[in-house]
């Protein structure tokens, strides 16, 4: 017959029995192919004290008289699950929400999870996520409800089970994803301005009816203190108090106008405001450069052609 699995708790004393053989049988044990120290034998049984993970392995027992393999046991040392940590969140309000869970302590053996969601007495189905095994998706059964949701996750393995329950109302779990495609551009001739733009997170289903407001924060790379501005009804903003010539780090967060909490910050982007082109130093003893067409000195600093040739040193680098 095949290998049978035996689960045992870390730190416990374990008795390995060789199939159904009687106590008078003469047995030889091997673990992972190697002979076992005979001091741990008690008749045909193998006694393992205060086991640890290192005791994991394939245990085989043979009858001495025939040399026949009598039993094979895969010993798995682990722990029963402790209370799972459950979080529910809606980043697709009002379409639905998802719940995720994890075990704060490893069990070293396979675990199964079961989630039940209730709104008042009505059970709501949770669709398992196709990719993440500790995640499932639920629809808001009702909107604008004062009845709370109750989500219970039960973790189970061969050594025991444990569960955790959270209760929340529809509004408190609303947390959008961060804004997307954040860009920041210098504005020619404006050494203290940066034009920042972003897009509503694509996961947010109805921005017209469920508008988001935004929180922009920016600071020179060399400083720690952020400057903040909260914005509604817009997906762009012009920073007008930037320090000339300093590289800036910029992030944006989003929140439903009326409920829930702020998203995480967007991926930071960097940009430096526009800077005047530095004119090359002119020495007395060096004759001015005479070009065949027009001499640069005859072009007034502020004429557009001169401006055009002044390359903007700074270009916004966008980290998608």
């Amino acid at each position, binding site marked *: 017959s095949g290998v049978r699995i035996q689960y045992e708790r870390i730190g416990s004393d374990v008795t390995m029995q060789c199939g159904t053989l009687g106590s008078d049988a003469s047995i030889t044990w091997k673990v992972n192919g190697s002979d076992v120290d005979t001091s741990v034998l008690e008749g045909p049984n193998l006694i393992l004290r205060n086991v640890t993970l290192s005791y994991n392995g394939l245990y085989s027992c043979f009858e001495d008289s025939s040399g026949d393999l009598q039993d094979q046991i895969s010993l798995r040392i682990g722990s029963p699950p402790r209370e799972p940590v459950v979080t529910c969140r809606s980043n697709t309000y*009002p379409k639905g929400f998802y719940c995720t869970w994890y075990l704060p302590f490893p069990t070293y053996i396979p675990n199964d999870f079961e989630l039940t969601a209730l709104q008042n007495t009505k059970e709501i189905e949770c669709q398992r996520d196709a990719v993440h095994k500790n995640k499932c998706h639920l629809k808001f059964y009702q*909107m*604008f*409800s*004062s009845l709370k949701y109750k989500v219970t996750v039960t973790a189970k393995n061969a050594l025991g089970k444990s569960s955790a329950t959270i*209760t929340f109302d529809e509004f408190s779990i609303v947390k959008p994803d961060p804004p997307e495609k954040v860009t920041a551009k210098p504005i020619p001739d404006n050494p203290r301005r940066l034009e920042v733009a972003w897009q509503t997170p694509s996961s947010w289903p109805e921005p017209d009816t469920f508008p988001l407001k935004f929180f922009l924060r920016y600071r020179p790379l060399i400083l720690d203190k952020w400057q903040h501005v909260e914005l509604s009804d817009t997906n762009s903003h012009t920073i007008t108090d930037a320090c000339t010539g300093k590289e800036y780090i910029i992030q944006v967060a989003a929140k439903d106008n*009326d409920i829930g909490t702020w998203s995480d910050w967007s991926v930071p982007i960097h940009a430096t405001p526009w800077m005047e082109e530095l004119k090359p130093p002119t020495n007395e003893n060096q004759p001015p450069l005479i070009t065949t067409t027009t001499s640069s000195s005859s072009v007034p600093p502020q004429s557009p052609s001169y401006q055009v040739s002044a390359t903007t040193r700074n270009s916004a680098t966008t980290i998608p």
Partner: protein
Amino acid sequence: MATNCRDGLSVTSRQELFSKAIQQARKLHKDAKQLQQAYLEKQGLSMNLNPDVTYGIPTAATSHWSELTDAERLNSGLTAYRTFRSLLEEVLDEQRNNLNTEDLEFHQAISSVITQVEAVIEVIEQAMLSLDLPIPCHSDRKLENLSLFERKLRGYKVLLELSNWALRSVRDFSHLNKK
């Protein structure tokens, strides 16, 4: 068939009207939420209170919000806020005469919310006019015979549902404003 109970209302531009309505509903949501928290404290009720009782209070919960027509949105809102107006007047009366007789500031806060409810009723009626929808007549609520504790509970439930209704109205008006 509902007869038109309001005529002669000036119809302002639709965009302007719904933008104003959104702001009013948003403020009502915020103030009703604050009043709800204050009510819990002043009445010594538990923060996790979730009274599964109705007392004839309009519940904002709906499972088919997206499919509602414009008329259904406005009509259900109007009916709800008219009911809230009379419920809040009863709540204010109970606070003044029984549950919290000395707390004038709290009474004022309830009165302020009543005024805001009336303003939302006004703007809904204007919206219905602007959409050529008949404005149904209002019939007064039947007073219920409740114990003191039931009245205390009901007051909380009124404010809980009112804040949810106000939020629903923000979404309704935003939805109507898109058209």
